[in-house]
Structure formats: structure tokens, C-alpha cells
């Protein structure tokens, strides 16, 4: 093995990507003429929206496109190895030994059939041939290092016995086992809750400080990048938009695309609903006393709640196996108001949302819609108010029937409501498509012909078709890119102002919820731990859990991020 001889006085960078092009079947160019370098010990983030080619670049660093039918051009050198030309042995040394990949979805990235420790040991033995026992010991050592409690015992567990955060730790342990010089992390925290994400990012930071490993971080989340890297490369359509130190790119972006991207990111210190609604010109009031005016405006119309839940409960299962998903939740939603419900996975927010529109039957408590009790009505008695309570679902791909045109999907609620006249149905669907910003002529198009954001617009149009008074949106934007996210939330706000809808906006993303809501309820373990206006909850959180959640949200400001990381470490050390 001969390392390329760097010229005197210069040190070759750890990663050198020169005019990289990756083309997949059908002539799709995922990466187009991209060049960058990464010095040993430094951290670079590839930031971009879905389809920008950032993950393809990460794969190219490890030669993962070799033998897949993808055509690559340009050169990639990692630790002196020419990835495109390396022989099998050299490629093997590169993968794991020089550069280790941390994949996105920790659930599917580990083999479900083997113990976690065995999987790490297997990888270790590829690079350090030796007795099985030594490899196992190393696996336990790295698992312990990434903070898996009782590592000896837990190393014998299979992946499904680990929580999401622990699986991500295990993947990091696997990457660490062979002491690589470069970590390639592809969306390492995207599937995780915000508090767990903060822990993993802190761990990553700590490990790098300890080992001096370089990091290439692929992420769609600018906040995650701000927390973790020295340099940022913004990608769009396979090309570089902007590259530079993180403070410069995020603090004073030179390119308009970067500026648009940053502007679309919901932030805890950004404009809240007040300013945004004001911007739309729906309410003519100054920012400061907007809330007051808004209250006054609506006072006469809808002082009584549209929907009211009292001590709502839901259990799943029976006997010993019973799980209480929602444990006595009380809340109200008024017309023209948005109630944000925020919580981490498993907090019961989706169960609550489904109960509010009676998709799920409550097992206890009361649910009143416009003053009438609907919590225990039979399906027949419910029919009259079903139409007025609608839902928009998280996954715009899965919640539309792929075998039916979007026009038909939107027409469903109309047909259910008893409309028989085809021309009227068609006219109404076209109106709705137009209203949510889609081309009315695309009635006959099928869901796969639409982008994620457009599909979510279809979902909203379908909810609107029934002329509802209240819509429960369950994670309506969490599957979307930030720019699309901003468009969809703006659409919802616009529709609400126009139609006086009551909205329940369920999300795990605190910044998004802050952006769209008037009032916020924070959920944990099936209960609401804190409820109040946006200013109250975000400005002066009372519950320690709310404070913990807020502290975990990545900040766009690298300096602030570092400061907060320090603060997060303090209680851990104490």
C-alpha cells in the first residue's frame, strides 16, 4: 500500500472530492460536478433538501455506488485511497477502517437476527483479524463508550430490544470500533426525538473531541449542522450552492437559495404566528397587541369552544397488557384558533388527535362538539357531525390511495355527504384543487405524479371538501422539506383565516408548532404537562419537561449552539 506522497510542507486533505458526478439509471444525475476537501479532524456538513444528492455523495466516499449500475465520474480520494479505482482489499480497508458510515434509520440499519455486540464484533474482525473473544470485548468496550448502560449484558441484546436512541448509539459504536479517521454520518438523528437527538449530537461531539476523527455530516436539518460542524456545503440538484465556515454560511449567506432555505427553517427565536398572520393581512393590528385584538375579534363569534375534551382517556389492550395512551387530557379548541399539540414519540398525541375527530373511541372522559356530547355517540348518531370534523394525516404518500386519481380521493367526502351530481362534484373538486394551490386540470392525475408537498395539499383539499369546522392535522409537515413545510403551514393559516376553522396541529417539532399555533399543549406519557399561549409556554415554560424539550432544539446559531451544549453538559457532570 503506497500512500500518495504529498508535496513538501503540504498535508494532503483526508477527503478530496474532485469533479464528482454520479448518474443513476435513466440518466438521472444525482451529483453534478461537485468538488470539496475535508481536512483530518475537521467537520463538514452537506446540507440540502431531499433530492439534492447529499446522501449520494456520502455513499460515494465509501464506494457504495460501485457495482450498482450507477455511473460515477471524477475522483474521490479518502485517506489516500482512490475510491473509484481501489481494488477489493483496499476498498475493504477503506470501508470501516479509514471511513465509517453511520446510517440514517437505526431500526433498519442493524441486522435484526443477531445480537448487537456480535454485529460490532463481526465488523471489527474484518479489520482486525483475531480471536472472536477479543472482538467481542472490543464491542463491549465501544458500546460502553457510547453510553449503553450495562454494556456486557446489553451487547447480547438484539436490535429490537434497544430503543431508537440506543440503536443510534450502537451504530456509532460500530463506527468507532475500528478507529476510523473519518465518520460519514447520513442523517444520524432524523428518526429520533429532539431530546434524544441532542444526546446523540453531544455524544458525537464528545467522541470527536476525544479521537480527533473527521466528520462528514449529511443532513436536511440546518440546526443539526449548526450544532456539529466547522464548515457547511449547501447542495441543490446535485450541485454546490455555497460553501464556507458554518458561521459565515448560516450567519451571512451569500446565495439567495441559502437565504431562502434558512428563512424557511422554523425557529424558536423566529417570527411566531402573530407576525406571520399579520403579514398575510388578515388582521389589521400591530404585532404587540395582536393577540389582544384577535381575542376581541373572535370574542363575539366564538367565545364558546368548538371542541372541548374533558379528562379524555384511551387505553389499549386489556388486563396486565393494558397501556394507557391518553391519560386524562382536557383541552378546548375555538373557531379560528390553532391549538398546537407537541410531544415526543409515544406521548399519545396521535391517539389524542384521532379521538378528537372520533376516529378512535375514547375509553373515558367526555368530548363535546359545539356544546353537544359526542364522545359516546354511535356511528349513526355521529354522522351529522362527522363531516365537520376532519383530519389531515402525516404521511401524504400512505394516506392517499395510490390506485385512485387525486380528484376521486378529494371527491370521496362529497359522495359520502350524499352528493350525486357528477358535474357538481367535479366543479367542487376543481375549486378545491385550485384553492390549495394545485392545477385544477390535474383531477385525473395519480398520487405518485405529485411531490410530497403537493400530496399534502391534496390531503388538505380532501379534508376541506366536507366543509369542516375543525381539522386535526397530525404531523402534517414532518415528512416535508423545510421550504415545502413553510408553504404548507402558510396554506393552512390562510385557509383558517378565510374559513374560520378550528385547527389542532399535532407535531414533534417545537419550532413548527410555535410558528403556527395560538395556544400550545405539551404532552408527555399521555398527559398534558403544560398548556398555555405560545408566549407563555415558549417564553416562560413552567414544567421542567417543557424546558428540557426547548433546550434540546438545535439552534441555527453555531455560537449559541456551543453555549447550550455546554449547559446541557453541566447537569450531566454534576
Amino acid at each position, binding site marked *: 500500500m503506497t500512500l500518495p506522497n504529498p508535496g513538501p510542507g503540504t498535508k494532503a486533505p483526508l477527503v478530496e472530492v474532485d469533479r464528482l458526478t454520479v448518474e443513476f439509471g435513466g440518466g438521472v444525475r444525482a451529483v453534478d460536478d461537485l468538488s470539496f476537501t475535508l481536512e483530518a479532524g475537521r467537520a463538514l456538513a452537506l446540507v440540502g433538501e431531499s433530492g439534492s444528492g447529499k446522501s449520494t455523495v456520502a455513499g460515494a466516499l*465509501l464506494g*457504495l455506488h460501485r457495482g450498482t449500475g450507477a455511473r460515477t465520474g471524477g475522483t474521490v480520494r479518502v485517506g489516500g485511497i482512490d475510491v473509484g479505482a481501489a481494488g477489493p482489499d483496499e*476498498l*475493504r*480497508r*477503506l*470501508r*470501516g*477502517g479509514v471511513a*465509517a*458510515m453511520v*446510517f440514517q*434509520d437505526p431500526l*433498519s*440499519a*442493524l*441486522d*435484526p*437476527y*443477531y445480537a448487537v455486540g456480535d*454485529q460490532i464484533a*463481526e*465488523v471489527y474482525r*474484518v*479489520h482486525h483479524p483475531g480471536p472472536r473473544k477479543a472482538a467481542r470485548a472490543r464491542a463491549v468496550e465501544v458500546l460502553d463508550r457510547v453510553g449503553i448502560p450495562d454494556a456486557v449484558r446489553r451487547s447480547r441484546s*438484539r436490535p*429490537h430490544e434497544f430503543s431508537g436512541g440506543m440503536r443510534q448509539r450502537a*451504530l456509532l459504536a*460500530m463506527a468507532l470500533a*475500528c478507529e476510523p479517521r473519518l465518520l460519514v454520518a447520513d442523517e444520524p438523528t432524523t428518526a429520533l426525538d429532539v431530546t434524544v437527538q441532542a444526546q446523540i449530537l453531544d455524544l458525537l461531539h464528545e467522541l470527536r473531541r476525544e479521537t480527533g476523527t473527521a466528520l462528514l455530516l449529511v443532513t436536511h436539518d440546518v440546526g443539526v449542522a449548526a450544532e456539529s460542524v466547522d464548515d457547511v456545503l449547501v447542495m441543490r440538484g446535485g450541485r454546490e450552492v455555497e460553501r464556507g465556515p458554518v458561521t459565515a454560511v448560516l450567519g451571512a449567506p451569500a446565495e439567495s437559495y441559502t437565504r431562502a432555505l434558512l428563512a424557511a427553517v422554523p425557529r424558536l427565536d423566529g417570527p411566531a404566528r402573530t407576525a406571520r398572520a399579520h403579514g398575510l393581512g388578515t388582521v389589521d393590528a400591530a404585532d404587540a397587541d395582536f393577540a389582544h385584538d384577535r381575542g376581541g375579534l373572535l370574542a363575539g363569534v366564538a367565545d364558546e369552544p368548538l371542541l372541548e375534551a374533558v379528562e379524555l382517556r384511551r387505553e389499549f389492550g386489556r388486563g396486565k397488557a393494558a397501556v394507557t395512551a391518553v391519560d386524562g387530557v382536557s383541552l378546548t379548541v375555538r373557531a379560528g384558533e390553532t391549538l398546537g399539540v407537541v410531544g415526543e414519540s409515544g406521548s399519545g398525541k396521535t391517539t389524542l388527535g384521532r379521538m378528537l375527530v372520533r376516529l378512535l373511541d375514547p375509553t373515558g372522559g367526555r368530548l363535546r362538539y359545539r356544546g353537544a356530547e359526542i364522545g359516546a355517540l354511535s356511528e349513526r348518531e355521529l354522522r351529522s357531525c362527522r363531516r365537520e370534523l376532519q383530519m389531515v394525516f402525516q404521511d401524504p404518500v400512505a394516506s392517499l390511495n395510490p390506485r385512485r386519481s387525486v380528484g376521486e380521493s378529494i371527491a370521496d367526502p362529497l359522495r359520502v355527504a350524499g352528493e350525486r351530481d357528477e358535474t357538481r362534484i367535479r366543479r367542487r373538486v376543481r375549486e378545491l384543487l385550485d384553492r390549495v394551490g394545485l392545477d385544477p386540470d390535474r383531477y385525473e392525475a395519480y398520487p405518485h405524479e405529485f411531490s410530497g408537498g403537493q400530496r399534502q395539499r391534496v390531503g388538505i383539499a380532501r379534508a376541506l371538501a366536507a366543509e369542516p369546522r375543525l381539522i386535526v392535522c397530525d404531523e402534517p409537515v414532518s415528512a416535508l422539506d423545510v421550504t415545502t413545510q413553510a408553504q404548507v403551514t402558510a396554506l393552512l393559516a390562510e385557509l383558517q383565516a378565510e374559513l374560520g376553522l378550528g385547527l389542532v396541529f399535532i407535531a414533534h417539532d417545537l419550532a413548527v408548532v410555535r410558528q403556527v399555533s395560538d395556544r400550545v399543549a405539551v404532552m408527555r406519557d399521555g398527559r398534558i404537562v403544560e398548556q398555555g399561549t405560545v408566549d407563555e409556554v415558549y417564553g416562560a415554560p413552567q414544567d421542567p419537561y417543557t424546558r428540557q424539550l426547548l433546550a434540546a432544539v438545535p439552534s441555527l446559531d453555531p455560537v449559541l449552539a456551543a453555549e447550550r451544549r455546554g449547559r446541557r453538559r453541566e447537569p450531566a457532570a454534576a
Partner: protein
Amino acid sequence: MTRYVLKRLAGAALVLLALSVLVYALFYIAPGDPARLACGERCNPEQIAQVREQLGLNESVFTQFLHFLQGVFAGRDYSTGTGVLHCEAPCLGLSYQNDQQVTELVLERLGATASLALGAMVIWLVVGIGTGLLSALRRGGLTERTLTVLTLAGTGTPVFILGLLLLMAVCAYLQWLPFPTYVPLGEDPEQWAWNMLLPWLTLGFFESAKYARLTRSSTLETLAEDHIRTFRAYGVGERSVVTRHALRGAVPPVIALSAIDLGTMFGGAVLTESLFGIPGLGKTLIDGVRHVDLPVVVGIVLLTGVAVVLANVVADLLYALADRRVALT
């Protein structure tokens, strides 16, 4: 775990009871007079009536069924004209044809059927998983296309044609083996194996086509999963990726299907048994149906039922053992 097995076994008992009711019902709807058949060609009406009385066919269907159940749980006595024949529980009755105890008959024939089914399973697992894996790995190549044609031909060829061809080639033309006759394992293990070889190959090859296709598709499915990418990205060799990780994910469905196939085969692989003259359950069942021999038919159907139900329980247990994410409830 124990609770799960007990629960499943209790369910199995119900299934078997329902099965016996069904067979009794079918039997009395179907045409044919067991007494006439049992008595023989030259019997006069009086003799037939006597036989009918002896076989208990004069009693109501319901009473006959109750007697049958009594026999299963407590045993029962039969008068043979000259004396009393006691049939111990679990008594499945006496054959109408030759007064042989059905329980004995069935257990005797079970040996032959089990020999055939278990041996064939070894072949279909080895051949099926082997070719399936190979065609998954050589996807798109000549090897895969050849194997695809072969497995398609395998499923497409009726088992008696496959068996006949083998018989003609190996025994008649090449004369490598004598024409097989069944020798019980207990008598002479070596002769048993030699004589079972052709039946095993016939049934094994026939079944292996299905397993090859199943293994191929589930291996490809596993190879496309994310965790395979993880190990490739860590420099784990392709052979290790396939045998340790991809195959591991492909095995559970194969186990599940095998157990069920094996259970069904315990009811007799009729065609193979007939072709090679193996005195197994399938052949006996066909004879029983032909002679309207109710006790024999019921006995074998129940045994098949037991085998299928047990095989399903075993399949579920093995599946849960192979894939620890499966919870048995």
C-alpha cells in the same frame, strides 16, 4: 411459551373433533353400502343384514359417533360372534374390511409415510435452499435463467411423471438399483435407505422447486434491506454478507413452509406412495375410501389433522425461535 403451546393444543383438540364430525357427516351422505362391500360379492341379503348388525350400522348416526368417541377416550368392546374383542383407548374402531384395529393399522402405515416425508424434506431443503440462493446471487445471469427454467419445470411436472422417468432411467435403463420395494427401517436400515432413495428424490425434487423460488425471493428481499448496506459499508465480504445476513433472513419463511408441508405429507403423499408401492397412509386412505371403510378413513383423516395442527404449532415455535422479534401470544 408453555401457555402458548397449551392454548394451541386445546385449539387443536377442537379442530380434531370438528374434523371427525365432518368426516362422519360426509360418509353418510356419500353413496355406497359398507356392509355389502365388507361381505363380498356372493353374499345374500340375510348375510348382508347380519354383517350390518355386526358392524353396528343399524344404530343411528349419532349413536355410532358417540360410540366412536367413547372408543377414542375409553376404549370399547366388539362382539365378533364367538367372543368379545377389546379395543384399547385410543380406539379408532375396527376396519370393516378385515376387523383389524384401525389404531394399529394406522400406526403401522405411519412408519412408511414418515420415512418418505422426512427423507424428502432433507432433499427439498438442501436442493431448494441451494438453488434458490444460487439464483439470487447470480441474478440476471445465465445460471439464474437456467435454474428458473429447471424449477419451473420441476413445479410443472406431475410427481408421477417425474417418478416414472426416474424409475425408468435408474432401474430399467441404467439398472443401478433394483425396482424399489419397501423395507421397514427397523428390519434393515441399509436396505430401507436404498429402497427409499428413488421415492425421496422424486418427492424431494418435486417440492424443492417451490422452496427454490421462496428462498430466491426472500433472499433478494433481505439483500435489499438497509442492514445489508451497513455490513457492505463496513467492508464485510460479499460471501459473509450473503451467507450470514441475507440467508439468515430468508430462512424463517422456509422453515414455516417446510413444517406445514411436512404435516400435510403425513396424511400421505398418495401419488408417490402408489407409484413406488410404499404401504403408507395415503395408499391406505385411498383404499379405505374405495371400500367405504369408515373407521379407516376417519382414523387417517384424524391423524392427518393431528399432523397438520402439530406442524403448524412447531412452525410457529421455530419461526419465533428464528426471528426473536416475533412474540408468541
